[in-house]
């Protein structure tokens, strides 16, 4: 039976490889061909680790030939945002400066865990410089481009991760989310993304941005694939000082339990302001599918966003002080000027933001006594055009770059787990955030899966035209 490997999910790919209907070598070659074909336009990958991937695929096929059991992600190609350490590459983190760093000597642990489950790294992915970005544009590497309309943004800062998965280059990618950098590109590219609870997934050997807000996590085109990757990446890691000591809590076996019985509410107040019609339409579809009309207000969400902004600006500045002193001309000027401004903020204000953070966390935790899931838009609008500087929110002209994360910042600020699900509107997709209480990724993923089963949350196939048709693989078994 032929398989269109561009469309096959990670779970199905692994099942085919495990049963011998497909070789890992074939899945990897197909992915490398898709990257070669589409990446000149999408600009998602910044490094392709073809030799490593081929070597790894052959080892998987050899293991199967010996009768060894293969992992749940056997032969699944994946990419990682270029702030993850990859052995043999400098971890550029979207910058020019970091290219001068020595090559990493060991992979980031989430790469090791995915590869231990049989997945195959095929390269690293474009991102906004030093992750201080919501657009997916990069002055050094060029912008990652949205597969649904290549004149538009992917969203950022994990823009290449969004473009690579939505553009069918790979079924799985990893990114980071400090203020929304997984959920914003998931929304604009129309795919599933998971920002788990702060501390759930190890961040060791990744280039930081704001240590007290940084998360790593997966992107996929199905809720099941997201859960599958999440399950194998969990677990303690003493190399990340905030990584939880909780044992892994696998969720893949829980997805079928549906959303029935869960208490779900729509975020109102702050989260109702600034929405474009497409965000309203996406929220309405999700609410109708889940039969939700209950509303809930997160107290002081606007202030939470302001505090996240403040902490990001100042912690980011502290991280980059030496580079700002020594190589200011090698930054993206927009990033440099924001970082220098962050260095000017009096520290008393930052401490106040951290005090407010605990207050806000406690109030929002109280809400989860009465609800299990809160729904909110992921972005105010579908993908803006590349280079677009401003948009209008509720009649106010505001910068796109700082405001695409309007709805994501107050959630990651207190580390809540979120699944961004894609709602395929008529022209461009947009995401909705499925937000749960700390450590309840299982509930958010159950709701995401239920919406997918209902045909409401779907990662739409982009029309990449002649290039897509020419390279749509059909590999016979």
């Amino acid at each position: 039976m032929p398989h269109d490997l561009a469309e096959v999910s990670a779970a199905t790919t692994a099942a085919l490889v495990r049963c011998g209907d497909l070789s890992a070598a074939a899945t990897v070659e197909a992915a490398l061909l898709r990257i070669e074909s589409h990446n000149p336009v999408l600009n998602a990958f910044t490094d392709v680790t073809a030799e490593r991937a081929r070597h790894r695929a052959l080892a998987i096929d050899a293991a199967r030939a010996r009768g060894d059991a293969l992992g749940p992600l056997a032969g699944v190609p994946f990419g990682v945002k270029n702030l993850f350490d990859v052995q043999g590459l400098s971890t550029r983190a979207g910058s020019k400066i970091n290219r001068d760093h020595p090559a990493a000597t060991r992979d980031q642990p989430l790469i090791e865990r995915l590869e231990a489950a049989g997945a195959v790294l095929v390269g690293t992915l474009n991102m906004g410089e030093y992750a201080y970005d919501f657009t997916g544009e990069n002055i050094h590497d060029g912008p990652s481009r949205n597969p649904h309309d290549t004149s538009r943004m992917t969203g950022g800062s994990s823009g290449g991760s969004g473009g690579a998965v939505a553009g069918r280059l790979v079924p799985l990618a990893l990114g980071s989310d400090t203020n929304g950098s997984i959920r914003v590109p998931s929304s604009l590219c129309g795919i599933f993304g998971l920002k788990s609870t702060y501390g759930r997934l190890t961040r060791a050997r990744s280039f930081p941005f704001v240590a007290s807000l940084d998360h790593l996590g997966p992107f996929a085109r199905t809720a099941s694939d997201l859960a599958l990757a999440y399950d194998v990446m969990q677990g303690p890691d003493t190399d990340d000082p905030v990584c939880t000591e909780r044992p892994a809590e696998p969720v893949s076996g829980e997805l079928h339990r549906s959303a029935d019985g869960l208490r779900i509410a729509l975020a109102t107040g702050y989260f109702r302001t600034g929405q474009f019609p497409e965000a309203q339409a996406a929220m309405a579809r999700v609410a109708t599918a889940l039969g939700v009309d209950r509303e809930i207000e997160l107290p002081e969400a606007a202030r939470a966003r302001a505090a996240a902004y403040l902490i990001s600006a100042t912690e980011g500045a502290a991280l980059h002080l030496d580079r700002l002193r020594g190589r200011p001309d090698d930054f993206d000027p927009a990033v440099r000027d924001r970082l220098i401004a962050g260095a000017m903020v009096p520290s008393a204000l930052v401490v106040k933001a951290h005090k407010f953070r605990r207050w806000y966390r406690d109030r929002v935790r109280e809400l989860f006594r009465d609800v299990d899931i809160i729904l909110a838009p992921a972005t105010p609008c579908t993908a803006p055009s590349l280079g677009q500087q401003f948009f209008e929110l509720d009649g106010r002209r505001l910068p796109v770059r700082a405001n695409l994360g309007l709805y994501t910042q107050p959630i990651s600020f207190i580390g809540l787990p979120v699944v961004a699900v894609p709602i395929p509107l008529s022209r461009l997709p947009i995401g909705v955030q499925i937000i749960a209480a700390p450590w309840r990724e299982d509930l958010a993923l159950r709701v995401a899966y239920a919406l997918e089963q209902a045909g409401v949350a779907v990662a739409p196939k982009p029309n990449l035209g002649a290039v897509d048709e020419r390279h749509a693989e059909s590999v016979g078994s």
Partner: protein
Amino acid sequence: MPKDDLDELIDAVAAALALPLDPAWLPAIKANLETTLKMAQTVEEFPLSDEAEPACVFRA
């Protein structure tokens, strides 16, 4: 344009931290700082008790 308090702050902090300041960067740095300080003001004016603990992550 005459210098205002924010310009003075930028000059002073840049000197204290040995940060380079190209005059061409100043309008963008100032605009960013103004935005950040507006954000900070909304946080600063929120009443919290003296006993409110910050949420910095540290485990001894």
